[in-house]
């Protein structure tokens, strides 16, 4: 178990009488890519939000790197080394690509954000690291382009880049290919394969092709509960999973 | 003991009036997610319209019926020219623009009807009081409570029991779905807006005989309407009723022991409720 970077133990989340997650258990091994799949309404997003900190679980534990984190605020988690992306692109639309990444980098040193007595032009404040990231994402030319003028694919890639600026040891990706054209998906798969060298990834995905191609481990949720777990191959042969996806048209 | 009883009854009476002030606001917000700061201005216009009709025809009843119709026609124009563009923007921008509308209406009424307040007398039929022992209550206020109750029941039936209401409620949650069903969502919204604003007009016309008519009555009503609706939960129909009753009762009781503080109490109650119930008592998350 020492190789588990993230452990979720008996995680339950209820809204009123409705149980969005019931006793979910999950182990993400260090250095792996772990997928969470399930039909619509299975509780994937709720689980994701509990991990990222935008909602608090009703009960259960989340252990990251040996530390209980379920009570921590969303803004504390990037600093611990958990980065997240959003299913629907969520950037700062009027700011440039460079400024978006710079802000994400600046956030790593919380005190810096309160510096009000001089401009951003001085060293530090993430300018250089943001340029590096742009280069890595292949978006050098778009450095000074406002986000709203970027293509959808470029925005999706930048979305992942934002999460990477905190140099996370765990990257949470919420449907990274959502809304992407079929042609762009291989580019995302490449990016993910590159990333596994530097961090552990947990992703929620609808696109089964992506999951089978890149994931080491897959957890399947249905109606808020874990119904199956294993390698992509094992899972795809599980009868329960097949029934769950029946009519969903994989 | 009888004092408390009186304060409760008076508070309930007031609460019904406040419900009437707030209900149009909450319906517009609930259906269209639109914050209308010009609500009070339409209320004042309703009172003026009633005054004008009454001075021409001599009949309060004609005023009461025609005032909301006039205000509705005006709302139709404003919706077409302006409000239609604002459904998708931030609340703060809706607020600023409708404040602009409010100012234009207020200054317009001053321009047309001058700065001297007008008054409308209670119609003979409803003049006088009813007395139960020591407790007296003007007939006209009972009439307002009755009319408000009728309007409330009518609205409830319309929204809950008819196909039209069903479509409106669906439209507020999933406009695209409704559009797919082949229903003209623009038309639906514009009808909702007209209806909500006309309700403000009804409130203004009904209250005119009690409070007189002046250009600044709208600002006062705006404050109360928002407090009522925020307490009950923006967009909630029954919330407006509960909010109205709470404000009416708080006002009635506070005026008994701390008259200068009635407004302090009303706003404090509102702030406390928002702190503990982020979306008001019955608001949706």
């Amino acid at each position, binding site marked *: 178990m020492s190789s588990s970077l993230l452990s979720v133990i008996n995680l339950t989340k209820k809204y009123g009488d409705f149980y969005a997650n019931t006793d979910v258990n999950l182990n993400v091994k260090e250095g792996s890519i772990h997928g969470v799949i399930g039909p619509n309404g299975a509780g994937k997003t709720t689980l994701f939000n509990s991990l990222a900190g935008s909602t608090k679980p009703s009960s259960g534990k989340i252990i990251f790197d040996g530390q209980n984190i379920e009570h921590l605020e969303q803004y504390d988690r990037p600093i611990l080394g958990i980065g997240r992306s959003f299913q629907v692109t969520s950037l700062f639309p009027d700011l440039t690509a460079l400024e978006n990444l710079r802000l994400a980098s600046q956030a790593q040193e919380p005190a810096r954000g309160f510096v009000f007595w001089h401009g951003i032009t001085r060293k530090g404040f993430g300018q250089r690291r943001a340029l590096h990231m742009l280069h890595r994402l292949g978006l050098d030319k778009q450095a000074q382009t406002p986000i709203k003028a970027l293509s959808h694919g470029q925005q999706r890639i930048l979305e992942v880049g934002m999460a990477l600026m905190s140099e996370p040891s765990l990257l949470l990706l919420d449907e990274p290919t959502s809304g992407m054209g079929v042609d762009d998906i291989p580019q995302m798969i490449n990016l993910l394969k590159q990333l596994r060298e530097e961090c552990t990834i947990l992703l929620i995905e609808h696109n089964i092709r992506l999951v089978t191609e890149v994931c080491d481990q897959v957890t399947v949720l249905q109606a808020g509960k874990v119904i199956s777990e294993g390698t992509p191959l094992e899972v795809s042969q599980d009868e329960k999973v097949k029934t769950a996806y029946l009519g969903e048209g994989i | 003991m009888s004092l408390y009883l*009186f*304060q409760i009854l*008076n508070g309930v*009476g*007031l609460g019904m009036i406040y419900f009437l002030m707030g209900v149009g606001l909450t319906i517009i917000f609930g259906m269209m997610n639109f914050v209308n700061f010009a609500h009070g201005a339409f209320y004042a216009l309703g009172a003026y319209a009633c005054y004008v009709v009454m001075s021409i025809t001599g009949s309060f009843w004609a005023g009461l019926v025609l005032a909301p119709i006039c205000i509705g026609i005006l709302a139709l124009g404003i919706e077409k020219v302006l409000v239609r563009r604002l459904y998708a923007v931030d609340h703060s921008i809706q607020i600023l623009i409708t404040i602009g509308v409010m100012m234009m209406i207020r200054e317009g009424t*001053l321009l047309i009807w*001058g*700065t*001297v*307040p*007008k*008054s409308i*007398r*209670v119609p003979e039929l409803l*003049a*006088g*009081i009813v007395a139960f022992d*020591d*407790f*007296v*209550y*003007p007939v*006209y*206020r009972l009439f307002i409570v009755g009319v408000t109750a009728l309007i409330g029941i009518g609205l409830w039936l319309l929204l809950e029991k008819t196909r039209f209401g069903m479509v409106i409620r669906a439209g507020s949650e999933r406009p695209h779905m409704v559009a797919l069903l082949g229903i003209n969502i623009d038309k639906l919204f514009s009808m909702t807006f007209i209806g909500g604003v006309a309700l403000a007009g009804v409130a203004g016309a009904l209250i005119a*005989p*009690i*409070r*007189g008519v*002046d250009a*600044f*009555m709208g600002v*006062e009503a705006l404050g109360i309407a928002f407090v009522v609706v925020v307490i009950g939960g923006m967009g909630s129909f029954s919330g407006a009723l509960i909010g109205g009753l709470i404000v009416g009762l708080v*006002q*009635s009781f506070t*005026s*008994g022991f701390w*008259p*200068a*503080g*009635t*407004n302090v109490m009303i706003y404090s109650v509102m702030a406390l409720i928002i702190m503990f119930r982020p979306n008001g008592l019955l608001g949706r998350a």
Partner: protein
Amino acid sequence: MIKLKKAIILASSMFLSLTSYAQAKDVTIYGVSSESGAFANFGKQGSKGLKLAVDAADDAAGMKFNYSIIDSESNAGKAARKVKAAISKSDARYFIGSTLSSTALAVGKEVDKAGGIYINGSGADEITGTQCNKAMFRWSAPTYGAVNASLIPVLDLHPEIKRVYTITPDYVFGEAMLNNAKIILKKRGIELVGNSYHSLKEKEFSGYLSQAMATKADLLLVLNFGSLATNTLLQADSFGMKDKMQILLVWSSGLDHFRTLTPKVAEGIYFGSQYWHEDESPANKAFVALSREKLKETPNYPMAHYYQMTKLLIDSMNATKSADPDAIRKHLEGLEYDGLTGREFINAENHQVEKYFYLLQGKKASEMKDPDNYANIISKAKYFLPANETGCKM
């Protein structure tokens, strides 16, 4: 060339008027009135009165009178700023009027610093009391005079009144009104059976009115003013209270209140008033005639008192043949003259103009002789505290 000459003459005359107003032939009187904002109806009428007085002024002493209106925007801060600017920029020294007492007090301070003269008609006791100063004169009767001149005659007319209920705005002015009333009631051994305080933004008087009815009072004494009073009376009427008790509104706005309330509501109710256009005094008859001729309207209180205050200033300039504030102040102090309400007298110690205050009673619509004949004058009287009891130290 001609233009240039004109400009030089104009500039030099302006320079003269700025530097030595004592010898100047042009005198500008500044009217502070709320032309816009919540009290625009008051300010507009006030300005009309001022203009009327300036236009009708004689030039006995060879002076030419001008006016300039300062719009207070119904805001004391704005008024203070604009008066400050007028003093420093145009060397203004003569100011007339205000709507709100807070405006009067603030403007009074400014004019005092500049050594000018300021006549206003606002209600707060402090104006000729604790906050009095040598620049400031006040034409209207403060709370003491208003309550005495209206309540006493009502009690005399109705000896059956044994129980009184009061409705009072919860702040300094209301408190002063109530105290004055309490003293009178106590002296006569009449019981004050209850009082309701209300806030200044109150619109809802039903609770207070039913308490008044529950106490079986014989007189409802309304101590608020303006739209508060309008709402109180409208609601009292709808409660049918006129049939059960007498009603007296001490601080009415006179004609404006009657117009707003309509005779149906006002009928039978007593109104205290600073001014009524049907007073038989010669000065008033002349003024009403002037107003009807020039403006085609019957003067109301704001118009009348701005007119009277302006006329008082102009008359003293003519009498002293000077535009020196000190000379005018000396002339005004202790002056007795024919005013709109009859013989009026200016107390030298606190600069209060001691004028008459009216008690009116609303008439039936069918008995009105003309569209503005809303009321009968029941009585008029002067009641003023001796200056040493007002707290004024100049």
